């Protein structure tokens, strides 16, 4: 009776797979068979497609319909196959021209009345479509702006199946409503000048931003740990175009694009609650494997408040992404790798009651319970954190002062300069941030000045510094040198870096 072919893209993580959607209509009892390992949402597609076709004024064939999604061995999930299936069905019945030129990829979920609903993961899907040589993509109107971010492809946005069919018949795109225009400039309403005092913590924040170091804030409740952390994206350099696409693609798959301006150059800030599970943290799920907080925070900041309250496994699951910059999640349906390069910021109270500061007068915790509280953070995790800062309550004078601290814009300028210095130094290397210098290189090409090395070797001799700690301190010293305009870290840089790492006796 009829045979037709359309194409679409399905996602495995962020990787697109080119899918051929074949429809065959043959004699026989009315029925609809969907082949090609569909998941639950995709199996329900036949009911949506059928209702959408009849409610769009097209006719439905009361024949034996077989839809095959190939490659057949690849498990497929999601509702974005509705549109390519519906179009192929209309083509197979002869209601649409049976040839689609140029090469077009269709994406979209149909509602029963025939209108097209937004789907997740349009950006990575369109990127993949371009890679597979598609010249044109047809997407739901609600995904238009997202699809348009991809260069080199014609985007046809349609509001409903009727619009899609009329475009294929006449080549005329019907009007549709474009929702909110995106703002391409990085903007963050949060500014560092909102924070009263906290000179030391601000300094640490800036150094961490220059070198991409992970941070640990300790301090009593209400001193501004969260405020400081939330403002880190505002002092980080804006994302580059390729980073923007990568971040937007992850948010598109995770379904969190609504919380973020499309194509925003502002690094993301993600703050999962401390009761979060390790699946929510690193990603997972039984159907489509979704990215977790570590990937949603890619190229940005992952902030975990009340870190010792986290279940131990949750924090330790961060070790793989911290080490490799990506997470690989394996499930029965396959394994998926998401990028996960983020700046980790942990915050904790100094003790369970939270009042241990200064001379610790208000604190009611026993020595033992304080030790047990902070011991919940495992050694291997703390080892990956370069900078630890005690956030003291602001003094009376700081609170009363009416001159605001430096604004984020000023600090960001310095961070960008510092990073440029480092990038020039690492021009021939495979890394570009101080926190990424490998240990071997720290002892050869990138060691500090003689006096600084002497100081650190002395600390090593006194067993106050471990070998790993030694490397960490050196990396922070490089960031300090970049910020202070030293060409090579001197003794003062090494001492400050050492204080950032070992300054907290609570851990010893």
């Amino acid at each position: 009776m009829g045979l037709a072919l359309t194409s679409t893209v399905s996602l495995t993580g962020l990787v697109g797979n080119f899918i051929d959607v074949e429809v065959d209509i043959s004699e026989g009892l009315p029925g609809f068979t969907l082949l090609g390992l569909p998941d639950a949402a995709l199996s329900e597609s036949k009911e949506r497609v059928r209702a959408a076709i009849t409610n769009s004024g097209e006719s439905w064939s009361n024949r034996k319909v077989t839809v095959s999604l190939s490659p057949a061995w690849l498990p497929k999930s999601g509702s974005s196959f509705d549109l390519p299936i519906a179009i192929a069905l209309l083509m197979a019945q002869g209601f649409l021209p049976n040839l689609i030129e140029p090469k077009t990829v269709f994406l979209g979920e149909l509602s029963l009345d025939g209108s097209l609903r937004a789907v997740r993961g349009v950006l990575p899907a369109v990127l993949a479509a371009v890679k597979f040589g598609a010249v044109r993509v047809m997407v739901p109107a609600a995904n238009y702006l997202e699809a348009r971010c991809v260069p080199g492809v014609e985007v046809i946005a349609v509001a409903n199946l009727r619009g899609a069919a009329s475009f294929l018949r006449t080549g005329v795109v019907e009007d549709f409503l474009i929702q909110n225009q995106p703002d391409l400039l990085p903007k963050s309403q949060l500014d560092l000048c909102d924070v009263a005092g906290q000179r030391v913590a601000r300094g640490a924040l800036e150094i961490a931003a220059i070198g991409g170091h992970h941070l640990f804030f300790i301090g009593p409740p209400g001193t501004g740990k969260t405020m400081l952390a939330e403002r880190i994206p505002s002092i980080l350099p804006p994302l580059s175009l390729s980073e923007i696409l990568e971040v937007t693609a992850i948010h598109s798959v995770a379904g969190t694009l609504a919380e973020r301006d499309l194509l925003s150059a502002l690094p993301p800030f993600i703050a999962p609650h401390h009761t979060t599970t390790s699946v929510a943290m690193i990603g997972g799920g039984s159907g489509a494997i979704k990215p977790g907080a570590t990937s949603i925070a890619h190229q940005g900041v992952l902030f975990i408040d009340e870190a010792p309250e986290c279940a131990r496994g949750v924090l330790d699951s961060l070790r793989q992404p911290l080490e490799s910059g990506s997470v690989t999640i394996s499930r029965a349906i396959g394994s998926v790798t998401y990028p996960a390069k983020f700046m980790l910021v942990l915050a904790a109270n100094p003790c369970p009651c939270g009042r241990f500061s200064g001379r610790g007068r208000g604190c009611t915790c026993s020595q033992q319970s304080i030790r047990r509280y902070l011991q919940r953070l495992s050694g291997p995790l703390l080892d990956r954190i370069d900078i630890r800062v005690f956030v003291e309550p602001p003094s009376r004078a700081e609170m009363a002062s009416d001159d605001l601290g430096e604004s984020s814009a000023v600090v960001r300028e310095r961070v960008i300069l510092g990073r440029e210095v480092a990038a020039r130094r690492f021009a021939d290397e495979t890394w570009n941030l101080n926190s990424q210098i490998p240990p071997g290189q720290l002892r050869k090409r990138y060691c500090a000045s003689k006096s600084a090395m002497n100081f650190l070797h002395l600390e090593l001799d006194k067993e106050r510094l471990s070998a790993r700690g030694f490397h960490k301190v050196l990396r922070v010293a490089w960031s300090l040198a970049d910020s202070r305009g030293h060409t090579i870290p001197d003794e003062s840089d090494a001492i400050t870096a050492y204080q950032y790492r070992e300054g907290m006796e609570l851990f010893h």
Partner: protein
Amino acid sequence: MGKNQILGARGEELVAVYLEGRGYQILERNWRIKDGEIDLIAISDTNILVFIEVKTRTSNAFGHPLEAITKEKAHRLQKLALAWLVLNHRWGSDYRVDCAAVIIPSDLNYEIDYREAVL
């Protein structure tokens, strides 16, 4: 006979006439055993045994008539066809199962949607 049974009998009659017009020879009508009934059994112009299930409706309001044939019903048809072959010593001969949808909106006109080899 109830209203629907009259309609069904009319549909079967119309299909029989249609098949004879195509050169088929009707062997049995409403062949019935304990397990069910076959509406029409015919032998085609190419000498193949054909078992036909006829569905008759006055409109498409409740879906296409052939949608009423579920997987279980199709399976039962298959079993009945085999039973007929055994009882009539025709075991091993070529056969197929067809379905016909008859829409009779009024006394004056009708429409037959005939589908061969549906199983």
